[in-house]
């Protein structure tokens, strides 16, 4: 699939070279290919339209840098726009200033919340912090066991209270964390659908009680068109601070990154890149731009200019 797209791209850009300016006509094919490529990468249909319009606007009439051919110039603009849309070149950090600071993970079922909670705890522990994990998933069978097992592996305590009432567990966890002098508290919550009102209400209640500094939605990188809707609903109800995009060790093109970023305006803060507890990285937008476009080689060529 990848080579195919690259071939199409080089075809599309052939008719651009040797001309001084980018015009509506000579980017028509290229625009079409970009659109297709983004859709194949699972970028949301509506987001693609907006994105293409803004890139076209920027590119039209643009003089072509001397060192580049017009097709490369177009890709350069495209890539920069893409990185811009994805949140710029510098990864966004988690901001924790209170003591203890609270981080809450939310998201759909199976997206990777529990695993990411353990990864975050490990990350903070390695920075010399004293994290506490809170098991507030009282629904999924063995969810608490899962977090306890992971906590044991990284030697981070797990608070699970009465194991029945998520609101109560979080309240008690606060007292516990203060008493035991934990400086970072990471709350794992049950997976839920954005249209499940009672379950969303539970998150709102937990949020209002604990006032986390970071509410992160955990999103599976293989997600398709519906990502826009789920991210929007979670953000509308909880005012997210950002996202963790998981399973990036797979081979999905990851168009979801653009979709959720575009619809919420919130940054992707971290990338999950494996099942192991160390597989959590800062999110570098420029690394994923090429992957989404499916034209890594072409992009790295321009990088050298």
């Amino acid at each position, binding site marked *: *699939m990848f080579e195919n797209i690259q071939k199409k791209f080089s075809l599309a850009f052939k008719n651009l070279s040797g001309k001084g300016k980018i015009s509506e006509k000579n980017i028509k094919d290229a625009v079409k290919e970009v659109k*297709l490529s983004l*859709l*194949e*990468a*699972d970028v*949301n*249909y*509506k987001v693609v339209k907006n994105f293409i319009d803004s890139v076209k606007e920027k590119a039209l009439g643009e003089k072509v840098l001397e060192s580049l051919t017009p097709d490369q110039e177009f890709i350069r603009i495209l890539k920069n726009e893409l990185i811009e849309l994805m949140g710029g070149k510098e990864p966004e950090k988690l901001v924790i200033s209170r003591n203890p600071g609270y981080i809450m993970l939310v998201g*759909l*079922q*199976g*997206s*990777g919340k529990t695993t990411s909670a353990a990864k975050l705890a490990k990350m903070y522990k390695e920075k010399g912090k004293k994290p506490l994990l809170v098991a507030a998933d009282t*629904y*999924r*069978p*063995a*969810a608490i*066991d*899962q*977090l*306890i*097992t*992971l906590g044991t*592996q990284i030697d981070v305590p797990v608070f699970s209270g009465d194991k029945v009432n998520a609101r109560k567990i979080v309240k008690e966890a606060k007292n516990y964390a203060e008493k035991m002098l934990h400086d970072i508290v990471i709350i794992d919550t049950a997976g839920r*659908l*954005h*249209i499940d009102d009672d379950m969303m209400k539970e998150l709102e209640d937990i949020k209002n009680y604990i006032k986390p500094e970071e509410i992160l939605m955990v999103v*599976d990188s*293989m*997600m*398709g*068109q*519906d*990502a826009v*809707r*789920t991210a929007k609903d979670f953000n509308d109800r909880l005012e997210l601070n950002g996202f963790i995009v998981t*399973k990036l*060790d*797979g*081979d*999905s*093109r990851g*168009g*979801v990154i653009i979709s959720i970023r575009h619809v919420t305006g919130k940054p992707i803060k971290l990338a999950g890149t494996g*099942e192991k507890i160390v597989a959590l990285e800062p999110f570098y937008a420029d690394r994923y731009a090429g992957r989404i476009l499916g034209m890594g080689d072409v992009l790295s060529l321009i990088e050298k200019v």
Partner: protein
Amino acid sequence: MGIFDKFKKGLEKARNTFFGSIKTIFAGKTLDDETLEELEEILVMSDMGVEVTQKILKELKEFYKKSDDSDPLILLRDIMEENLTNEPINLNPTKKPYVILVVGVNGNGKTTTIAKLANQYIKNGKSVVLAAGDTFRAAAIEQLKHWGEKIGAEVIAHEHGSDAAAVAFDAVKHAKAKGKDVVLIDTAGRLHNKSNLMEELKKIKRVVQKELPEGIDETLLILDGTTGQNGIVQAKAFKETVDITGIVITKLDGTAKGGIAFAIDHDLNIPIRMIGVGEKEDDLQPFVPHEYCDALLGLEE
């Protein structure tokens, strides 16, 4: 309650804000460019993929020309339905033990689907053995044991970290010795691009064959209904490795539409057997193309 009510409910919520009602958008419309573009939007937004969308719209145009004054939306539904095969899973196997292997990428609903399937077999009067073949993920064994207890299925499990194929072997051997009807083998979630993990699945198949020469009867690929185009890559890779015989699409109780089903059926010819519409043991439904397409397009009977 119709069997697709949960799926419809989610989609209705999605439509109210996204399109308004599809029926009213298209009421009295002819198949002009604008209508086609709107239909394209609906299909692509269902994760059907651009290629299959174009194919279906092309067919629609052809049929529309031939059949005067038909409703484009009904025509579309019929064409979509034509593009899906309907082959239900065998819920009353006579062969004993009937062995089902369940595979797929991480977190898409394998273990829960096994519980749901086991529940259906038990309701049909079958005795069920569950094999805890996910020996990798934290508390995966506990999760399966919990389900086994809840629905009344026996669970064969080894230690965390042990060989998955050995668990499958023991479960099949046990079922054979005790005259059990059905064996469901859970496996750890694995991304299809990790060849060492994919090899492990082959080993499970081989080892089961040692005990039962006819081997595994059904190899189900679980696919998360929210998955985009990567679903095709997943299905391809798993098909090549372990010869998938059917697919279950999960999490269709949300607002995702599972349009990837079309692309997979189209490209790979693997039937969709069931859909998952919730987290409880009863939330598993047979896949009925007609009802599915109706629900996806917001059509009522």
